């Protein structure tokens, strides 16, 4: 009989591959919403604007 193997879900940093833990109890805002905000702010800081942000800013303008 084949031995059972467990699949462990892990979260890795997109850049370094390091493990990054998330808080045990999330707060009042959703992960996806926060991730989008982090990417937007990081892109502005790095001077790179992703296509979605560009589209939105054009639409707003």
């Amino acid at each position, binding site marked *: 009989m084949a031995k059972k193997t467990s699949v462990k879900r892990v979260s890795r940093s997109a850049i370094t591959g390091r493990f990054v833990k998330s808080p045990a109890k999330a707060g009042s*805002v959703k992960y996806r919403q926060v991730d989008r905000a982090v990417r937007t702010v990081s892109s502005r800081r790095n001077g790179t604007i992703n296509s979605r942000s560009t589209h939105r800013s054009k639409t707003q303008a």
Partner: protein
Amino acid sequence: MKTSKYNENVFINCPFDATYKTLFDAIVFAVFDCGFVARCALEEDDGSQIRVQKIFDIISQCRLSIHDLSRVEIDKSTKLPRFNMPLELGAFLGAKHYGAGVQKKKACLILDREKYRYQKFISDIAGQDIKAHDNNPKIVIRVVRDWLRTYSQVSIPSGSVIWSRYQVFESDLPLLCKELNLNLKELIFNDYVLLVSRWLKINA
């Protein structure tokens, strides 16, 4: 209790006032950047639960803890010292001493602003290695990182690298709050740890 989460949880026992916030934020950031999870009494706001019971519960779920005694000093209005931090340190040491199984594996980092100041008010812990942070967030990040390295299975960036990342995060934080309709001055602990952990996941 899941042992993996227990090993990663770091209980932070420190003051929660505005004057300590600079150090507190730096400690929380360093804990997450080292791959651990910061826990503290602020994470739950359950009016039906007795505060000390909530603290005991969190302590039982954390293998590691950071205790900062730097604000144990005479209060100007009451002329009495604040003793919540030594009490919670005592609870943690008691859990390690009297607890069974994984509780025996507990380890803690004790901080103060000066290295030997604690001997004047809590001499029973003499012989333990107390680290001084001089009220400096850069120093506290290095001290926390160097201590957590002992308990990490993987390589952790140096304190100076984490400090640099923390400064970038600090500059991003007001913009992040604006994006998420959060008031920077009204961020609660759960908001802050979520922003730190997701920021690190994308930027680290």
